[in-house]
C-alpha cells in the first residue's frame, strides 16, 4: 500500500550497504513524514532542496552542517545514533565545498520532482551523499525533534523565492565564517536557507540585493547602447557618459531641425522611394559615399565651427531642461545667420554634412 510504497521508495534511493539496518530504523511511525516528503513537490513549485524535503528548518540546517552525515553512507547505520546527539556546527573547510556543491545542486533542482532530482544528484557524489543522508536523517531525527506545523511550512513557501536567490548566489562567495551559520541557526525557524557568505539574511537586504542586481543588469545594457562605454568601469563614470550621450543626441536633434528649417523651402517630399532602401541601413550614412571623401581638408575648420556651435549652445542646453523652456532669441539669431552664411555655398554644405558625421 501507500505507506509501504513510501518506505520502499526512500529505501531505494538510499543505497546504503547496510540496507537492512537502515530499514530497521525506518519503522512505520515515520511513514507519515515520508508521505509528506513525497507529496511535497506537488504543493509548491519545487526548486529548492529543502522545500522538496518539507523538513522542519532546524533539521535541515543541522543536517547540512554535519560532516557525519556523509560518513553515514560509508559507515554502518549505528553512526547515525552518534550523530543524533551532536547538533553543532563545526568549522570545516570541507563543508565549504559541500556548501558550494549543495547550492549548485539546488540551483539545478528547479521545478523538478523530488524523484527526478535523484538521478541528477548521483552525478555529484557528495551532494548525492548529502541527499541520502538527509533523507535517512528525518527518519532518525524525527523522534528527537518536534514535527513542523503548517504555519512554518507556509512561511517557507513564501520565502522560497528569496531562498533561490540566496542559493544561487552562494557559489560566488568565498569568505568563510561560522558566525554566519550560527546566525542562521539563531534565526530559526523562519530562516531556513543557506545565506551567502558574509551577507545578512533579513528580507530588507535581500530586497536590496535583488534591486541592485536589476540595476546592474540595466546598466550593462545601457553601456552597450552608448558607444565607448564598455571600457569605462564604475557606475558614476558610465552614468556621466550616458548623460553626455543623451544630451548630445538632443542637441543633434535641435541642430538638425534648425538645418531643416533653413533648407526645407526647396524640396518637395517624394521621399518614399528614398526611405524604403534605407530601412535596413546603418548609421554610417552609406547612401552618401560622395560626402565622405572631402573629409580631409576641412578638419580644422570643422572643429572650429563645432566649438563655436557648442559654445553658443552650451549655456542653454546643459543647464536647463530642453523640453519645457522658452528659447532665448538672441543666441539662435546669430546661429541662424552663421548657418545661412554657410548654406550659401555648396562647399559649406558638404562641410555641414562632414561635421555631422564627425560628431558621431
Amino acid at each position, binding site marked *: 500500500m501507500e505507506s509501504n510504497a513510501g518506505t520502499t521508495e526512500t529505501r531505494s534511493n538510499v543505497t546504503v550497504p547496510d540496507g537492512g539496518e537502515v530499514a530497521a530504523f525506518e519503522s512505520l511511525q515515520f511513514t507519515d513524514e515520508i508521505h509528506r516528503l513525497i507529496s511535497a513537490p506537488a504543493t509548491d513549485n519545487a526548486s529548492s532542496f529543502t522545500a522538496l524535503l518539507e523538513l522542519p528548518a532546524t533539521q535541515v540546517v543541522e543536517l547540512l552542517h554535519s560532516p557525519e552525515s556523509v560518513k553515514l553512507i560509508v559507515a554502518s547505520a549505528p553512526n547515525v545514533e552518534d550523530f543524533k546527539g551532536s547538533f553543532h556546527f563545526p568549522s570545516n573547510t570541507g563543508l565549504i565545498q559541500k556548501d558550494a556543491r549543495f547550492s549548485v545542486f539546488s540551483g539545478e533542482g528547479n521545478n523538478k520532482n523530488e524523484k527526478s532530482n535523484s538521478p541528477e544528484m548521483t552525478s555529484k557524489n557528495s551532494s548525492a551523499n548529502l541527499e541520502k543522508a538527509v533523507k535517512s536523517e528525518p527518519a532518525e531525527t524525527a523522534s528527537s525533534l518536534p514535527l513542523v506545523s503548517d504555519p512554518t511550512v507556509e512561511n517557507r513557501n513564501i520565502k522560497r523565492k528569496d531562498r533561490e536567490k540566496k542559493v544561487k548566489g552562494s557559489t560566488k562567495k568565498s569568505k568563510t565564517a561560522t558566525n554566519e551559520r550560527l546566525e542562521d541557526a539563531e534565526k530559526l525557524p523562519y530562516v531556513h536557507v543557506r545565506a551567502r557568505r558574509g551577507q545578512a539574511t533579513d528580507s530588507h537586504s535581500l530586497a536590496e540585493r535583488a534591486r541592485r542586481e536589476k540595476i546592474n543588469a540595466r546598466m550593462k545594457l545601457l553601456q552597450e547602447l552608448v558607444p565607448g562605454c564598455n571600457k569605462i568601469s564604475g557606475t558614476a563614470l558610465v552614468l556621466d557618459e550616458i548623460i553626455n550621450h543623451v544630451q548630445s543626441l538632443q542637441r543633434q536633434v535641435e541642430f538638425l531641425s534648425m538645418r531643416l528649417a533653413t533648407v526645407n523651402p526647396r524640396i518637395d517630399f517624394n521621399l518614399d522611394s528614398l*526611405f524604403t532602401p534605407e530601412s535596413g541601413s546603418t548609421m554610417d550614412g552609406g547612401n552618401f559615399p560622395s560626402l565622405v571623401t572631402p573629409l580631409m581638408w576641412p578638419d580644422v575648420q570643422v572643429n572650429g565651427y563645432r566649438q563655436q556651435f557648442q559654445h553658443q549652445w552650451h549655456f542653454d542646453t546643459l543647464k536647463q531642461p530642453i523640453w519645457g523652456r522658452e528659447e532665448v532669441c538672441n543666441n539662435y539669431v546669430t546661429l541662424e545667420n552663421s548657418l545661412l552664411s554657410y548654406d550659401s555655398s555648396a562647399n559649406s554644405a558638404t562641410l555641414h554634412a562632414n561635421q555631422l558625421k564627425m560628431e558621431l
Partner: protein
Amino acid sequence: MMNTPQQVKNPSTSLKSRFITRFLGALTKINAEDPISSPSPTRIFQRYRRIKVASNKSMAYSVRSRRIWSRAMLSRFRSRRSAFSGRRSSVKTTNCTTINVTINENKTAKGGLDMQTDELRELVPGGEAMDVCNLLDETAHYIKCLTTQVQVMRKIVDFCHLSK
C-alpha cells in the same frame, strides 16, 4: 541594437517607418503653412521650433503610450496646447508628488550617484516620477529613439542638400 530599431516588429510598421511617415507629414504641413522663401531670422526661428516640436511629437506618437517617457512627452504637448487655448493645465505636477518617497529611498541606497540620476531625470521626459530601475530602462529606450530620430533627420537634410 542601434542598427535595427525594428527588430521585433514587422518592417512595414517599425518605429523608424512610423516616425518617418509622421515626420514627413508634419514637415509638408509646415512647408505648406509658411511662405516658402522668407529669409527673416524670426521666421526661420519659428520654423525651427515647429520642426523640432514636430520631430519630437512624431517620435512620441510613434512610440504611443508604451513607454513612460513618451507618455510624459505627449501629456506635456497636450497640456501645452491646452494652455495656449487658455485653459489651466496642471498635468505635470500630479505625478511628482506621490513618488517622492521612492526617490528618497533610492538616494539612501545609492548615495554617490544622486547627482547623475537627478541629471538623467531632467533629461529624460517624465523622469522625475520614476525609480532608478525604470529610469535606466526608459533611458535605454529613449536613447534608441533619439538615435533613430537623428538618423532620419540627417538623411532628410542630406537629401535636401543633394537635391539642391
